[in-house]
């Protein structure tokens, strides 16, 4: 990960600029702003920029920022050390070559009792000390900047992913039609083509209605209950064609509830669950009862089916938890959803939607 080149150079400019500025300022306040000090600063500046840039190239080249944290810290130190010594050596050479040494430095080099090389080494070491500080600060800024940028990007990515998942989930819930159901229905219809052509024709119509409505469903937030009921009736008629006498269907629908708005495919999901987890598991089948009434200003939709509510509710989670999620997204905490064992052999799923809710 590289920060944009422009920002990098801006950082370099500010960093090394302030280094020069501070040094010049101190020299000025101690009244030592001589041409030599300026030239020396120039040398440090050029070498500093050059070698910090080299350090950046090394970091990028070895992909240091992609490694784990411990390795990063260790390698930052190693690189900083190496670069520091190289720079110090070069600056000593340059300072000697252009005769830009301070008085103390010149004296150190000229000590007669020790060999010239040891003096020079001492000079390099003392130079390295201040260079190390500079490059260490440089590395620290570089490292921290990237560390923060990286973790912020990760956070952003996670957030984006989460919202994408949520959106997709909602889309699938709405458009959800079990492919198993489609193929089983087609198979039954094919068998009926010979046995009962009239029923087969009806089956094709019912299946088309369901497919069409499931495609349109994701466009609307709410549909009239009547429309939803049509789909459910088609769906159950098809399941009845498959299960034959193993499935009995009963409707108890209050006419006043027909125009009320409901979330599309919600009742459908509950009915599908009733078949999938109820009827299809009973050897002798059972009953599915769809009830729609108004109670205390709540539109109550209930689906009862023969079957047993077993412990592993989480297994059938998608349909149910999506129902809860949709209700809370649409109505806040005003709507209710519950599923319970209504009697010894009947499971009931019930949704209560506030009647005067506006969308």
């Amino acid at each position, binding site marked *: 990960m590289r920060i944009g080149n422009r920002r990098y150079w801006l950082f370099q400019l500010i960093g090394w600029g302030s280094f020069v500025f501070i040094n010049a300022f101190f020299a000025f306040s101690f009244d030592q702003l001589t041409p030599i000090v300026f030239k020396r600063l120039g040398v440090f500046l050029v070498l500093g920029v050059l070698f910090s840039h080299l350090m950046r190239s090394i970091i990028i080249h070895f992909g240091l920022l992609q490694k784990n944290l411990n390795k990063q810290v260790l390698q930052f130190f190693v690189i900083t050390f190496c670069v520091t010594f190289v720079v110090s050596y070069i600056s000593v050479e340059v300072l000697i070559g252009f005769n830009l040494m301070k008085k103390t430095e010149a004296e150190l080099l000229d000590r007669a009792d020790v060999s010239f090389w040891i003096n020079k080494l001492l000079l390099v070491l003392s130079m390295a000390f201040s260079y190390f500080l500079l490059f260490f600060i440089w590395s620290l800024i570089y490292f921290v900047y990237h560390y923060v940028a990286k973790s912020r990007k990760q956070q952003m990515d996670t957030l984006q992913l989460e919202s994408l998942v949520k959106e997709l989930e909602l889309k699938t819930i709405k458009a959800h039609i079990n492919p198993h159901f489609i193929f089983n229905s087609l*198979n*039954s219809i094919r068998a009926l083509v010979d046995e009962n052509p009239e029923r087969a024709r009806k089956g094709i119509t019912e299946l088309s209605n369901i497919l069409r409505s499931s495609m349109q469903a994701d466009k609307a937030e709410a549909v009239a209950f009547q429309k939803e009921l049509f789909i459910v009736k088609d769906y159950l008629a098809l399941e009845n064609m498959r299960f034959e006498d193993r499935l009995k269907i009963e409707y108890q629908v209050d006419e006043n509830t027909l125009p009320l708005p409901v979330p599309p495919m919600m009742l459908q999901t509950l009915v599908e669950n009733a078949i999938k987890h109820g009827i299809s598991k009973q*050897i002798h089948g059972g009953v599915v009862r769809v009830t729609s009434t108004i109670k205390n200003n709540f539109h109550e939709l209930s689906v009862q089916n023969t079957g047993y509510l077993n412990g592993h509710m989480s297994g059938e989670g998608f349909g149910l938890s999506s129902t809860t999620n949709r209700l809370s997204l649409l109505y806040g905490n005003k709507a209710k959803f519950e599923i319970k064992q209504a009697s010894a052999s009947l499971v009931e799923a019930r949704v209560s939607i506030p009647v005067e809710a506006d969308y």
Partner: protein
Amino acid sequence: MRAIIIDDERLARAELKKLLQDFPEVEVIDEAANAEEGISKIDSQQPDLIFLDIQMPGKTGFDMLSELEKAPHVIFTTAYDEFALKAFEVNALDYLLKPVEPKRLADAIHKLQHTEGKEIRTTEEYTNNSILSEHDQVFVKDGERCWFVRLSDIRLFESVGNYAKVFFGTNKPLILKSLNALEERLDEKFFFRANRKHIVNLRMIDKIEPYFNGGLLLEMKGGEKIEVSRRQTVKFKEMMSL
């Protein structure tokens, strides 16, 4: 080939029967609407082939197979490939997606006839149904994983409480059968009760070494070492010297 169709939907069975009319080599002798019915009909009529729906009320097709003493050839039928993928893992002969494409059905039947052809030499062994021959296959289900295993591929049965551990390939799943019950059903020409805890496949023995107390130590082809009890050693030597 005598076949039984097992599917909980009458229309699905009717449709498959109709498709099978084009294949005179397959004779549908019966049908069943659930796993229980399926098991009893398979036991009483011993079909060569079953068409098996996977999702059925009560028990799934896999559960049903694991309860059979020996598995006939199976062609799975399913509406959705979520389960078909699983069927592949159990190396079933084939699976068909509903609505069944006639071409795929023909392929499956031809493939089956091909394997049947290879097994003709074993047909006389089918005469005694209570004893499993080494070419019989059994269906083994261990949790989510299932296998069709030929008895000749099984190295060893090991008793673990009420269960038996079945060793084949690199797998050793548990089946709910006692070692004694297994011994009664296995052909003693191929399977030998080495001791209280083990039944070994005689063709899967790699090495035989003498052991303490005049017993023997068998090393199986999978590397398992099985001790033959002293009493059984006498019997073992008798059998091997024949």
